[in-house]
């Protein structure tokens, strides 16, 4: 199943690349607009990944099962990568269009803040020893951190800034031509598959890390060694 998802992710990324290059350029921005096929899916995945972190955090607190914590931590890690990608691609697009790499727009500032919130979440996870202790503390911070997500999303509506308001997720009709919308949705689908594939791999790694942490080290004696049968080598 995991292998199938990975193959599907690679295939859909290739198709999305072709679609993103094949659709006509934007009537105002020209080819510059094509970076949106990376920027928008990355931003969407940031929301999705941090939303999954929230679900994993609540799931752990309700069930006390470590697999929820692994889901939360792994999703946050992948989400941080995609948030960084959204910030970087937004900045690259902003230079020719807005004339600056960075501007003090509410959406940009809050997205950067969200990036740092989840970096802090990952730093917290690294600071706590013991899987259960780490899971409990990071689950609580994971819930608090999720307060940022709606604020980031609605920031373009609450604050008048340079960043455009929602184009697709808006109450009236989407303000985008059908071919461009198709390419964008294809990219969103492809990126989502990439996220699922990365998340699967990261969870496997988290399971292996927990096993490694719990396993006795080579230089450690197992409890009760004093009462195990004497080894002949010790008597010679």
């Amino acid at each position, binding site marked *: 199943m995991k292998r199938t998802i990975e193959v599907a992710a690679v295939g859909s990324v290739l198709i999305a690349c072709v679609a993103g290059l094949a659709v006509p350029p934007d009537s105002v921005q020209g080819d510059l607009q094509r970076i949106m096929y990376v920027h928008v899916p990355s931003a969407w995945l940031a929301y999705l990944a941090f939303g999954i972190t929230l679900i994993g955090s609540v799931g752990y*607190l309700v069930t006390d099962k470590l697999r929820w914590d692994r889901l939360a931590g792994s999703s946050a890690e992948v989400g941080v990568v995609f948030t960084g990608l959204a910030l970087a691609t937004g900045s690259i697009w902003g230079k020719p269009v807005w004339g600056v790499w960075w501007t003090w727009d*509410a959406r940009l*500032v*809050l997205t950067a*803040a*969200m990036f*740092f*919130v989840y*970096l*802090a979440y990952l*730093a*917290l996870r690294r*600071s*706590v020893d013991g899987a*259960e*202790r780490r899971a*409990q*503390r990071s*689950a*609580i*911070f994971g*819930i*608090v*951190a999720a*307060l*940022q997500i709606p*604020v980031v999303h609605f920031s373009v509506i*609450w*604050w008048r800034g340079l960043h455009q308001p929602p184009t697709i997720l808006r109450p009236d009709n989407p303000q985008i031509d059908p071919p461009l919308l198709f390419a964008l949705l294809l990219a969103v689908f492809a990126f989502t598959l990439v996220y699922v594939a990365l998340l699967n791999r990261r969870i496997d790694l988290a399971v292996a890390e927990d096993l490694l942490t719990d396993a006795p080290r080579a230089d450690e004696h197992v409890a009760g060694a004093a009462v195990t049968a004497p080894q002949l080598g010790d008597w010679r």
Partner: protein
Amino acid sequence: MIHHVLVLVRSELRNERRSGEVATVVIPFGAVAVLIIPMAVGIDRPLLSQIGPGLFWAIVLLFGIVVTQRQSGAAERPQHDLLTLLGVDPAARFAATAIASFVLLVAFEVAIGAITMVLYDPVVIGWGWLAVVLPMVAAGLAMIGTIAASVTSGLGGRGALAPLLVAPIAIPLLLGAAQATEGLRVGAGILRWVLVLAVVDVLLALTGVLTARPLEES
């Protein structure tokens, strides 16, 4: 439970009165920051008057973290264990620490606000609204700080980690407060920003109370 909260709040504030950490260290430190910023941005009175309220909120956020991470009597291991044995609800402990931080943060805001008024001479209309916005920001910051202090309790590098946890999460509070103050300055409505602050405060209060017990167990 309310009795427990009141006793713990009194204890926290008594500790602060004895140590004077906020009054003799954090408030003077914040005042120094208010004083030196004009030397960095240039002594331009109209500019300082305009940016004064924003700087005030930035200082409240950054130095407010220090207030929330101060030494807390109830957080010491022996007292913590004693309170657990006495059957004090973890939610009561969260509420008490947050309320004590709230009181100290309001005092900090008033002190730094007065210094900012004197040094920057900002134009602020609608003082009544400030009496609403200041406590709401203090409450939000106090709750975030209390949660962060509990989450990082007993960890190595706690001193660096707690501010990293608090500062980015407190940005919605900073933005709401700064926008409200700007709205007062230009005479626009600020009810929306007050509502944003209220929603953030309510969500933090719910999160703090509901997660107090799991934090206790960790």
